[in-house]
């Protein structure tokens, strides 16, 4: 099995995540799409690690996981606070700031 397929899969997942961020309106869903993107990158990293024959990529995947977790915590806190103060998680409803 060539690693190319993993790269394609990773690119696909990343794209799905990116499109999701752009088209979805629920902050939580957008947030999950971002996590999807990060994990797609992890897949890439691990694949490249294998292609390159070094473990660096896997170690990086570790770091990415940590960062993703930290992002989850921070993001959840922020989204929760806005959700609690205005009872909606829709990005569209956040419209106090306009041009």
């Amino acid at each position, binding site marked *: *099995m*060539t690693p*190319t397929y993993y*790269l*394609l899969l990773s690119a696909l997942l990343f794209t799905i995540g990116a499109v999701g961020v752009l088209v979805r309106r629920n902050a939580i869903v957008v947030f999950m799409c971002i996590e999807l993107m990060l994990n797609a990158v992890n897949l890439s990293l691990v694949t490249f690690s294998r*292609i*390159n024959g070094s473990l660096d990529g896997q170690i990086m995947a*570790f770091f990415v996981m940590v960062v993703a977790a930290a992002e989850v*915590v921070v993001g959840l806190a922020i989204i929760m606070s806005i959700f609690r103060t205005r009872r909606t998680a829709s990005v569209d409803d956040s419209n106090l700031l306009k041009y």
Partner: protein
Amino acid sequence: MPTLRPLLTELAQTPVAQPPDVVSNLAVYLPLVVMFALAAAFAVFSALLGPLLGPSRYNKAKVAAYECGIEPSPQPVIGGGRVPVAYYLTAMLFILFDIEMVFLYPFAVSADVLGMFGLLEIFLFIATVGFAYAYVWRRGGLDWN
């Protein structure tokens, strides 16, 4: 994307280097897949067994949400429902410590190789998490009431 094809061919031809200490054969995971398939088949089969074998006698009271016999309150939970903050907090703490574990495991495997340096590092690492832990503790993040 015109440049994708050559890239892919090239990548496909790139020799995959094998680091000696990495078990690289994915076939090792095959039994796991088999087990998953069997377990899934069993679970789905069981879940479908109920509707196939069991009776189906409609009754309005049966399909109402169970709330100890009181008239069910209208949909407080799904969608717009809110979950007490403490659960979010637990989730966040879980993530924090889960990540700590993610690092502790690889460390533990090679702790002997790392020696004193490893000790220092892991001590710093645990201390760092400890600061956050102390903060959460003292601010009542671990209290349920």
